[in-house]
């Protein structure tokens, strides 16, 4: 983590004692959105850190499912891949993937799904497939859908975690891998999707939420030390800002210590 990314919030004494970096703030903000007892569909990286943090703090009864088949798992260290042995060893049960996708996800049993993306648009549609002009001849080929398309479709709510820059927050994404709100109200219904769609987009700068009627993303909270201008400058469209814009609470010492301890359990550095 470069020094320039260390975020020092001048107003908070907690922050002065414990300067945090933007990944930590993003992780902690995501963890705080989870409620005890929720059934969560989790992926590798920040979603795992956030879910494990929430389970260790305010939501001990979070029910975590990973697409690899681990049901109600309770990892004590950060899984390095989706099939990490820690996820299987700490699980209530390990099942095959048809059970995960057809019986858990598809009927709407999952309360909250986590997604990341390379690109997002104002209606929270996301791209994890390719960057460039065409599918056949991409500039950068990305891994693709994995579980994301159906997670975006069927979870009751979805959290998208993504760093905010004009390269990621773009007016038009190069490929819709997973549908957010399509081209606006009614799009999800027309496409037969049963979930509510993205509820929060959590970035390194703040939190965005879809506006109730237009479904367009609105900036609803700034992380400490971040300005509205900074967020606007890192968004590739005319970003709407909520009238009652909030500020995320600074990470507490406990949150920071737990996040750092978790990250330290991974044997390699995550980029």
């Amino acid at each position, binding site marked *: 983590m470069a020094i320039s990314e260390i975020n020092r919030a001048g107003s908070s004494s907690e922050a002065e004692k414990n300067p945090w970096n933007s990944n930590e703030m993003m992780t902690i903000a995501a963890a705080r959105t989870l409620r005890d007892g929720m059934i969560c569909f989790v992926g590798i990286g920040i979603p795992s850190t956030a879910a494990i943090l929430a389970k260790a703090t305010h939501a001990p009864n979070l029910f975590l499912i990973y697409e690899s088949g681990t049901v109600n798992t309770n990892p004590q260290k950060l899984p390095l891949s989706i099939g990490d*042995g820690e996820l299987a060893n700490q699980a209530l049960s390990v099942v*095959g993937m048809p059970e995960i*996708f*057809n019986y858990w996800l*598809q009927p709407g049993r999952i309360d909250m799904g986590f997604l990341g993306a390379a690109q997002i648009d104002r209606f929270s549609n996301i791209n994890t497939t390719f960057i460039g002009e065409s599918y056949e001849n991409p500039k950068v080929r990305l891994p*693709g859908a994995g579980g994301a398309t159906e997670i975006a479709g*069927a979870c009751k709510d979805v959290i998208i975690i993504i760093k905010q820059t004009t390269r990621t927050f773009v007016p038009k994404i190069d490929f819709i891998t997973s549908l957010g709100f399509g081209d606006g109200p009614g*799009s999800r219904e027309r496409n037969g999707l049963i979930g509510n769609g993205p509820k929060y987009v959590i970035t390194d700068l703040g939190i965005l939420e879809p506006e109730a009627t237009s479904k367009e993303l609105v900036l609803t909270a700034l992380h400490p030390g971040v300005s509205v201008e900074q967020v606007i400058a890192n968004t590739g469209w005319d970003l709407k800002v909520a009238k009652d814009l909030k500020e995320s609470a600074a990470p507490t010492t406990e949150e920071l210590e737990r996040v750092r301890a978790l990250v330290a359990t991974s044997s*390699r550095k995550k980029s």
Partner: protein
Amino acid sequence: MSKFASLEEAISANVNDGDTIALEGFTHLIPMAAGHEIIRQRKRELTAVRLTPDLIYDQLIGAGCVKKLIFSWGGNPGVGSLHRFRDAYQNGWPRKITIEEHTHAGLTNRYVAGASGMPFAVLRGYFGSDLVDKTENIATIDSPFDDQKILAVAAINPDVTIIHAQQADRQGNVMAWGITGSSKEAVFAAKRVVVTVEEQVESFTPKFNSIIIPEALISNIAVVPKGAWPSYASGYYERDNDAYIAWDEVAKERESFTKWLDQEIYAKSSDAYQGSEA
């Protein structure tokens, strides 16, 4: 007749040029040694099916074995890109490959349909995604019972499915435990099945979260200790994360990959995988 065979015999007897192959195992129990043997036997024109191509198909693609890849998530898990896959897809090296891209739910259900002997399986999936316009073997249909739109995915029936498991018993039944992904469905969907195992045991001790593949479903079994390395085999060894990171460097350039191919595959014999990577 015993189905136990050497790895060389098992691959030679069951994998032919032009076959559709599925080497399954979701991050865990990836049949890496079997993949190496396919490369060593210079099989060509394969259609390679797998949810997560992982290192194993990056190697097969880079070695020129594959003409078409059917997949749903193409990355190096926890590390980054599959450079050999990208080089083949974008630049045609060492040969042009085509792709058929799915979601995990979709490709899993293609196996389910194949395993069930049905022409297709149904799901609520792909909807709203641009994949709908790009991907063969999916179609939107009307539910015959209500007014819902349903997505159908065509069955896939590999000529051969290859999996790695922990144990075979004396009769040739196989037991795998821990994360098994879509392996069971890929086995039932296949015309022929090859299993590599960590060890042969006299009889099984029941394990939590295990599946059994009865001998009747299996064509050949090869005992290949550490045959899933650098992925892992629960109860035997851990995932070698350093090897996944190291692969990024090996695969990045054609030259380093070619050198790896010569040294690690072609210069080694079929049974060299056994215990060699401890």
